[in-house]
């Protein structure tokens, strides 16, 4: 990892931090007052390359059924949106949100010279830059640094799941991360904890690796009690289905409702790399996606929090228009994104890529730069300046109310 050493933290840890200040933070986990309007962004990554063409299906185009063969969904199966497109039948949850006016689809999302490697394409999305990791930082890290430059609060950026995605890396603020909120604690007797806190914090650290680990420990000590309490105290107003994603979204709702200062959440749902057996896998994945988001949105609505929360769903690429011989689809180019929340205006945004004008690989050509989706979240939603975060101007989509 060649992220630049973050200077503010570096100065803090090497010079001025007194042991008592650090220990106070570790012991009480006090978060500073929320510095903003209370709007929250939830980035939901559909990892593996979501087949957008079988999510928002252009059933009225003959080219679709021809290319997809046995994977093609018929107009009878689909949840009809308009005379040209309908949603995958497993997405009843999202259809309900769409009909209620809170779900925007963005078609033809991508970037020039599309990369078909999961990792390199996901790097582009995570970096929010066409040169991927070479920029050294993820766009969510830059976003949080931009929104809360002077706020020293580990809870501003929360990544749920076993791993922190690159989007959260390389900024001054680091993500708090955990898989299971109830596990998020240090098991030790009081005097051991005290000794450890002092042993870790009472010294000046200049080496990068040790400073990194020291900070992870201190952030964990400061945030774990806050997170655990918010989740333990939470009584949702909707019933969440039994899935990993639903469980993560319930945690997000708990932290928002519990007044934790998080402004950006990062969530992942994997398994979209459907090279084979796509029909059954997509059915299962999309049902998990739609049902979990439906519960989440209902829960937030009941708690009158839906207007404060924007969910953005995305994937590293779409999939090839023609099905392969394994009952699946190979890596493609342009994909589908969505925005969901009380502040969203339902509708179709971006522009639909033409099924009869594919690129040389037989993939959809992008019509809408993915950074327009980010710019929508940064500017109109969170009140930031997309040019600062993305390094260049991108026109926000007009999908917010």
């Amino acid at each position, binding site marked *: 990892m060649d992220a630049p050493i973050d200077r503010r933290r570096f100065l803090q840890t090497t010079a001025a931090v007194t042991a008592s200040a650090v220990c106070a933070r570790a012991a009480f986990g006090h978060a500073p007052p929320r510095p903003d309007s209370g709007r929250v962004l939830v980035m939901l990554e559909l990892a593996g390359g979501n087949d957008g063409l079988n999510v928002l299906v252009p059933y009225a185009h003959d080219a679709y059924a021809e290319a997809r063969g046995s994977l093609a969904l018929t107009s009878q199966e689909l949840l009809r949106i308009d005379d040209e497109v309908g949603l995958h039948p497993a997405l009843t949850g999202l259809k309900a949100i769409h009909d209620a006016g809170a779900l925007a689809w963005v078609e033809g999302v991508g970037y020039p010279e599309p990369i078909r490697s999961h990792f390199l394409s996901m790097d582009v999305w995570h970096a929010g830059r066409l040169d991927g990791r070479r920029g050294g930082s993820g766009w969510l890290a830059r976003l949080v640094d931009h929104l809360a430059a002077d706020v020293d609060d580990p809870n501003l950026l929360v990544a749920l799941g076993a791993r922190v995605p690159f989007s959260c890396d390389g900024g001054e603020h680091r993500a708090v991360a955990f898989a299971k909120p109830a596990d998020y604690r240090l098991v030790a007797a009081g005097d051991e904890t005290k000794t450890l806190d002092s042993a870790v914090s009472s010294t000046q650290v200049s080496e990068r690796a040790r400073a990194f680990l020291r900070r992870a420990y201190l952030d964990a000590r400061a945030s774990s009690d806050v997170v655990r309490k918010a989740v333990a105290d939470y009584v949702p107003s909707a019933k969440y289905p039994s899935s990993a994603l639903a469980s993560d979204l319930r945690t997000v709702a708990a932290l928002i409702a519990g007044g934790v200062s998080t402004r950006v959440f990062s969530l992942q749902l994997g398994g979209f790399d459907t090279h084979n057996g796509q029909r059954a896998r997509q059915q299962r994945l999309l049902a998990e996606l739609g049902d979990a988001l439906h519960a989440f949105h209902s829960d937030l609505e009941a708690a009158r929090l839906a207007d404060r929360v924007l969910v953005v769903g995305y994937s590293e690429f779409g999939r090839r228009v023609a099905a392969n011989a*394994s009952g699946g689809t190979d890596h493609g180019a342009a994909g589908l994104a969505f925005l969901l929340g009380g502040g969203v205006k339902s509708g179709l945004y971006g522009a639909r890529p033409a099924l009869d004008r594919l690129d040389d690989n037989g993939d959809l050509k992008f019509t809408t730069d993915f950074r327009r989706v980010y710019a929508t979240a940064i500017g109109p939603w969170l009140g930031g300046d997309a040019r600062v975060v993305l390094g260049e101007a991108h026109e926000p989509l007009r999908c917010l109310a």
Partner: protein
Amino acid sequence: MGLAHVALWTLACTADPDWTLAEARHLLDRAGFGATPQEIARIHALGREAAVDALLDPGSFVAFDDPSPPADDPSFLERAFATEEERRAFRRERARDERLRIERYRDFWMREMAQGDDPVREKLALFWHGFFTSSQRDVRDADAMIGQIERFREHGMTSYADLLHAIATDPAMLKYLNNDKNRKQHPNENFAREVLELFSMGPGHYTEADIKEAARAFTGWVAKDGEATFVKARHDRAEKTFLGKTGKFDGADVLDIVLDQDATARFVAAKFVEFYVGPGVDTASIETFARTFRAARYDVRTLLRAIFLSDAFSAPSAQGALFKSPVEFMASTVRRLELDPPPPPFLALAAEHLGQSLLFPPNVKGWEGGETWFNTASILNRANVARILVHGSVGVREAEAMVDDAMRVAQDDAEDGAANEAKRRNDAFARAVKRLRRWDSKLDPVALCGSARTSNAAIRALCDRFLPVAPYASTVAELQWFIAPHGDDAFDLNDEETRDRVRDAVHLVLCLPEYQLN
């Protein structure tokens, strides 16, 4: 063995001033999974080159011998006359059998790492597992998956070229990257793309067209009953153009062309350096390793020998420059604590709990490693798992409260009983922890601190044993105060309270940022 008293990172061996105990320790940390002070002294006494050669000379291969052979599949007749209900039962039974065999294998492999005589072999197999990645999640064939790891364990020290050829028709790999579905009529690009991007040249040295042509060359293989078979009718025999060469290539031809590229030697050598040395090695050194590797026809032992004897490897800045992966954390902690490993399946499930699930890497790129092993949750989880290893059943009772909480939340979320995979894995770890209720770690705090007479000597001995870099003076002071709150007059290892304090301090040392380094 008074060695535990000695600060390893400062002591130079008098016979060979360029070969220090700290370097011997570094070699054992990186080539294997760490060692006790006695083992470090033994390797150090050999001198640098002999030490490297001794480590690279493999012991006899201990193959996995599954104590419970696979359940018989139902016969053709049984299947033909089975009701739908019975068929579901067959499938359930088979899935359970697969799960248990994978669990037994993971425990076997973790034990070899944590206690076996040939940690160098196991470390190298772990490298290959993260390089030529397959995951049982997609392979769904315990025989094939175990066979792949056994291949890495048995042949990991031979030739990369041979391994690359072998992996192209490895049954687990055929399934993992769908090359068993790749046929002339409908090529499937998955394997072709990953073999170029991740298993050989790395990105930037080929085009999308090369991928399509290579995919055609790889057509024709299927995996059945744990065997790879070539089916002529599925293979595309027509001409292909790959990396500027044209011919009626098959998969092996394409791999030979790949092995002929400088980019391949460079990419693979760089992966070894990243794994065994760390970040920040200059490109000129990597270029030298790549040339050595290529000249030795991709002989892995030659490459490792060159790496371990290089200046880049023994540079003081390389010591402690890597982060311990969860598997390394578990294996090396058991080694350094001189424990009998806890009963199965704790080690593998604990590593999984810390973010590294053997035989289930997250994706075809393997584990990203480095800083990504750590976040606010995993740093606390490491502390909690270390507590169980140090305190045995006492630690378990405390940890159970934690796990019970986790299970309660999971159950709230899963009222309708449809347990998802994440919950199942969490429950499995919880059960593995509960199984340690009667396990005594038999940790000997007196031996670990070298029978020290003073609190300072005791803490220094612990830090010497466990930390790859010197701790800060303030850290030593805090720990010293912890084990001798009433001063050294009351510090007496014959006294039970002092021993308990030292045992607690062992746990605290394992929680330090420095211990997470390698």
